[in-house]
C-alpha cells in the first residue's frame, strides 16, 4: 500500500523473526490494515520502528535460544524497558512472564507469574474459536464486542501473580477453567489467541494496535481504509 502524500508514512511494524513459525499470516494481516512490515531477524532491524510484534507458537526454551543466537533478546528487552508499543502473540505473550513450566525455560520476567499447562481442560491443545471476555477498556479492543470469539491454539498460558496480577489481566477465556487470554500494562500488550487468524475482529484488533502507535502521518487514514476493505 502506498502512502498518498509526501508527509504521510504508514506506520512501520517490526515482526520479530526468530525462526518460530508462521510469520506470513501476521505480516499479511498488518499489510491489510495499511502498515509497513519489517521482518526483524537482526538487531539493527529494530531501528526506526514504530511498533514491535513478537509472534510465535511452540515452546519457550527453543524460542529463547533462537532470540539469543540472533542477538535479538537484548534489543527486544530494551524496547520493552522503554515502554515502546509492543504486542506479544501466543508464545510472544508467554515469553513476557518469568518462566515456563513446559520446559523450565527462564523467560523475559516482565510479568510476575509463570506459563503453566491449562488446568482442567477437557481437550488439549486448546484449538479453535473461544470467547474473549474483556475485563476493562483498552484501545486494543476498540469496536470489538466484549465477548467476541478469537482463534486459539495452545496448551499453556501465562498466569499473572502478585499484587499486579489484577491490573495486568485484560481479558479472560474459559476452557475447563478460566485463564488470562490478554494482558496489558503501559504500551505493552499480549494476547494468547491469534488475531491474525481471527477474521474480521482479529484484523480490527491489529488495526487498533497499529492505530495506537500515534500519528505517523497517514496512519489513521490507512488503518481505516485497511479494515474497511475486508
Amino acid at each position, binding site marked *: 500500500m502506498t502512502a498518498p502524500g509526501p508527509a504521510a508514512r504508514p506506520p512501520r511494524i517490526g515482526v520479530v523473526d526468530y525462526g518460530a*513459525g*508462521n510469520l*506470513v*499470516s501476521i505480516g*499479511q*494481516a498488518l499489510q*491489510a490494515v495499511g502498515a509497513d512490515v519489517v521482518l526483524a531477524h537482526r538487531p539493527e532491524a529494530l531501528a526506526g520502528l514504530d511498533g514491535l510484534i513478537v509472534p510465535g*507458537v*511452540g*515452546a519457550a526454551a527453543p524460542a529463547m535460544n533462537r532470540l539469543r543466537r540472533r542477538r535479538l533478546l537484548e534489543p527486544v528487552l530494551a524496547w520493552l524497558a522503554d515502554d515502546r508499543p509492543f504486542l506479544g502473540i501466543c508464545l510472544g505473550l508467554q515469553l513476557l512472564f518469568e518462566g515456563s513450566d513446559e520446559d523450565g525455560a527462564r523467560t523475559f520476567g516482565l510479568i510476575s507469574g509463570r506459563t503453566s499447562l491449562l488446568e482442567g481442560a477437557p*481437550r*488439549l*491443545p*486448546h*484449538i*479453535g*474459536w*473461544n*470467547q474473549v471476555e474483556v475485563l476493562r477498556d483498552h484501545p486494543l479492543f476498540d469496536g470489538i464486542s466484549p465477548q467476541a*470469539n478469537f*482463534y*486459539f*491454539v*495452545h*496448551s499453556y498460558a501465562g498466569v499473572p501473580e502478585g499484587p499486579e496480577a489484577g491490573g495486568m489481566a485484560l481479558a479472560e477465556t*474459559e*476452557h475447563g477453567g478460566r485463564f488470562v487470554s490478554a494482558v496489558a500494562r503501559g504500551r505493552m500488550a499480549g494476547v494468547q489467541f*491469534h488475531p*491474525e*487468524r*481471527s*477474521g*474480521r475482529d*482479529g*484484523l480490527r484488533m491489529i488495526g487498533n494496535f497499529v492505530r495506537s502507535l500515534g500519528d505517523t502521518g497517514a496512519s489513521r487514514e490507512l488503518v481505516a481504509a485497511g479494515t474497511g476493505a*475486508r
Partner: protein
Amino acid sequence: MLCHRVIPCLDVANGRVVKGTNFIDLVDEGDPPELAERYAREGADELVFLDITAAPEGRGTLLDIVERTARRAFIPLTVGGGVRHVNEMRDVLRAGADKVSLNTAAVADPDLIKRCARRFGRQAVVVAIDAKRRTDLPAGSPVAWEVYVRGGRLATGFDALDWAARAATLGAGELLVTSIDRDGTRSGFDTDLLRAISDRVTVPLVASGGAAGPADFVAAVREGHADAVLAASIFHRRMHSIAGVKAAMAAAGIPVRLDEGAAA
C-alpha cells in the same frame, strides 16, 4: 466455551479446486484463494486444502495458492496431501499454512509425526486417518475399523483406534477422521467411529465423510463427540450454507461462532 468448528474442505489439483469421483472425472470448481475467501466471509471457522495431485512437480503451484489464500482469508488453514518430510512441512508453513495434515507418510513412517511436532509444535501437526469398517470379522465380534492410505485405496492392517491413540502420543495435535464407507455418500457421518476415537484420545477430533445436511453436523458433535466438523460437496454445490449449518447447531445447544457480519 470453546466453539465447535465448521470447516469446508477444498480438494485441489494442479492449482484448481476440483471435484470428482475416486479422483477421476475431475470437474473444475474454481480458484482456491477465491473460494477460500468466500468461505471465510460466509463464516467458515477454518479451511482445509487437500492436494490430491500431490505429485512433486505440483508443489510449487500448491505453495503459490497457499500464499495467495493466506493473503485473503484471515482464518486458519490446514494443508494436506503429499507431505513426506519435515522440510516439505516447513515449506507449506512458510507459505502461510497454520497446520499440515499427514496421512500416508505418517503410516509409512510414524516417527515423522514426532519429528514434525518437535520442530513446529504439535498444534501444527494434524494426522488424517481414513478408516473403513471391517467386514472380515466373525459374526458377533465387536465393531472395528481399519486404516487405509493412498486416498483410501490401500489397506494397512492398522486398527483405526490404536493408530489414533499412537498418533496422538507421537505428537499429533489434532486428528482428522474420515469414514471411507460414508465419504461422498451423503448418508451422514459414521458417529460410532468418531465417538470410539474421540473417547480414546484427548486431542481434538475433526469429523469427516458423509455430511448431507445440518442434522449430520449436530450428530457428529452430539453422538460422535467431534470437536469440529468438515464437509466439502454440500458447501461447494451450495446445497447448504455455513450459516445455515451453524444455525442448526446453535439451535441444538452446540456452541458455535456466529459471525454477525457473515453473509448467509
